[in-house]
């Protein structure tokens, strides 16, 4: 135990003596929160719409007016040339081309089904699907207006029987994306600290040759690994607190659950990430090697974790993979605690899984660390 304290003291001395890292520990969470939280959003505003109105009737103009009235679309160009419209779509200048063929107004006047045609830029599949859904919504409203304007169209009853849905969004009532993203961004923050600071620290000792001086002492393997983990857990949790305070002050993020539970989970998570990082650094003999491999691991863990894409819609093998991805648990736990106010009993399964991963990865790191080659 005393040995570990000597080691921890040494790490802190070194970390804060490094001018760059000493400052970065404070700056990184600030910058990451202030830039990523407001910037990373799935919300879509202002789909740029190009209209080809070959009809030029009051019906077509009414439809265009309705589109212009929606906050979602911005009608920024009208043309009669299909070629021009295609060209603009090719150049990415517009997201959606809506062609209203001649005879549209006439068909509606004759009470025949009228057709319009939409071409959607689907380079970003998510945007394309959302645009399509919104367009459908507008057309649906337009149809209801037609029906309302033509009372005779439905035989006798003045009222059309239909289902109206009212809804309420739970846990994030106003669908504020920053509330959804922030818990995940906090998780990325502690991951980066665990992976890069701790992992590189060990490789740096290899490069400097100091690891050999340590290896020739009677220090125990678990003491050494603990000495490498604890300082970074402390720094990680400190940065987490900083990020959380910032989220509260700047983004007014709700925090429904227990702060203690939140930090406990983060600590368990950090142990698992540090286990992976130290395991990798045991194989690396240079910082360059470590960075390359660690980058690859971080990318996979982060992108598969469900921070940007819904976890549940991944293929089943990916969901299985995520059973070994500590990040996936932490993202879920963070969102549950912060937005939903979940308590220990709601998330104990995730916490238990995370703890198992922490034990396994740390055991790997300790086993792989060789004092005698």
């Amino acid at each position, binding site marked *: 135990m*005393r040995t570990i304290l000597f*080691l921890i003291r040494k790490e802190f001395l*070194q970390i804060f003596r490094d001018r760059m890292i000493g400052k970065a520990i404070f700056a990184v969470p600030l910058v990451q929160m202030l830039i990523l939280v407001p910037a990373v959003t799935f919300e879509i505003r202002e789909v740029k719409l190009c209209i080809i109105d070959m009809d030029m009737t009051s019906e077509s103009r009414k439809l265009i007016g309705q589109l212009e009235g929606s906050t979602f679309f911005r009608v920024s160009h009208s043309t009669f040339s299909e070629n021009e419209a295609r060209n603009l779509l090719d150049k990415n200048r517009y997201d959606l081309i809506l062609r209203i063929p001649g005879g549209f107004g006439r068909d509606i006047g004759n009470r025949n089904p009228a057709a319009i045609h939409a071409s959607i830029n689907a380079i970003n599949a998510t945007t394309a699907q959302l645009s399509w859904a919104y367009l459908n919504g507008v057309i649906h409203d337009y149809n209801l207006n037609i029906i309302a304007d033509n009372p005779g169209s439905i035989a006798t009853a003045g009222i059309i029987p239909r289902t109206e849905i009212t809804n309420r969004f739970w846990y994030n009532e106003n669908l504020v994306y920053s509330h959804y993203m922030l818990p995940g961004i906090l998780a990325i923050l502690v991951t980066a600290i665990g992976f890069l600071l701790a992992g590189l620290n060990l490789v740096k000792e290899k490069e400097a040759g100091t690891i050999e001086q340590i290896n020739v002492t*009677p220090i125990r393997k678990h003491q050494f690994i603990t000495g490498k983990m604890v300082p970074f857990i402390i720094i990680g949790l400190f940065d987490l607190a900083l990020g959380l305070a910032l989220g509260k002050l700047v983004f007014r993020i709700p925090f429904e659950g227990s702060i203690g539970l939140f930090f406990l989970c983060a600590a368990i998570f950090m142990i698992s990430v540090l286990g992976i990082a130290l395991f990798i650094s045991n194989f690396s003999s240079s910082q360059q090697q470590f960075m390359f491999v660690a980058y690859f691991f971080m990318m996979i863990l982060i992108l598969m974790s469900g921070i940007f894409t819904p976890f549940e819609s991944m293929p089943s093998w990916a969901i299985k993979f995520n059973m070994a991805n500590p990040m996936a648990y932490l993202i879920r736990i963070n969102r549950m605690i912060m937005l939903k106010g979940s308590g220990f009993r709601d998330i104990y399964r995730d916490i238990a899984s995370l703890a198992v991963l922490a034990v396994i990865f740390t055991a790997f790191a300790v086993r792989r660390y060789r004092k*005698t080659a």
Partner: protein
Amino acid sequence: MKDIPVIYVRNLVKKFGSFTANDGLDFEVYEGEIFGFLGANGAGKTTALRILSGLSKPTSGIVRVAGFDAGNEAEQIKRNIGYMSQRFSLYEDLTVKENIMLFGGIYGLRKREITGKTADLLSRLSFEEYGDRLIASLPPGLKQKLAFSVAVLHDPKIVFLDEPTGGVDPLTRRQFWELIYESASRGITVFVTTHYMDEAEYCDRISIMSEGRIVALDTPENLKKQYNAVSIDEVFVKIARSPEKIV
């Protein structure tokens, strides 16, 4: 005293793949001795020294250091030895005192013991004013003396020195050897590799390695007599020219 081997090596072989770095070494080192391990670069000195210090496992053979087997009791060996590698390995970004505190702590010394030893060590080296300086800011000679003092801080039975005076001026080398003598007089066995032949003269006994094998082992005096040479340097050159004659 002289009869107790603290290092006992029989038929030590270390292979890296198909390359044999140590090819059947036999020797023993006695308590309180200064034992010089000589040889050209690549002769296998460092490999043998790393095995003796428990940093590397022998491929085969018997290696006992301070009563423990290097094959499966490496950690017990480490409790009883000090080590200074040819790569300077104190923490450059810690101060002199912080380094002493760290290594003292790792060897299980009490804080008060460490403080006492630190003051002692600094005054012995006339280092008092350097105590709070970062290692990185010290001249190489001071660093090396300090590294040696840290290596014997916990009063080990044996200290292993791997080319400890590489790249140091002659005066500092002399001072360094005074430190070695002082430790030996305290009963610490010194095992030192070097390729400075003048340093070999300071040793009680020396062994000369060539291509993974020990080709000569005796006191400097006896070796000079045997090879009809005035200096170890000359002995070394004679051996290097006709290695097959000696074996």
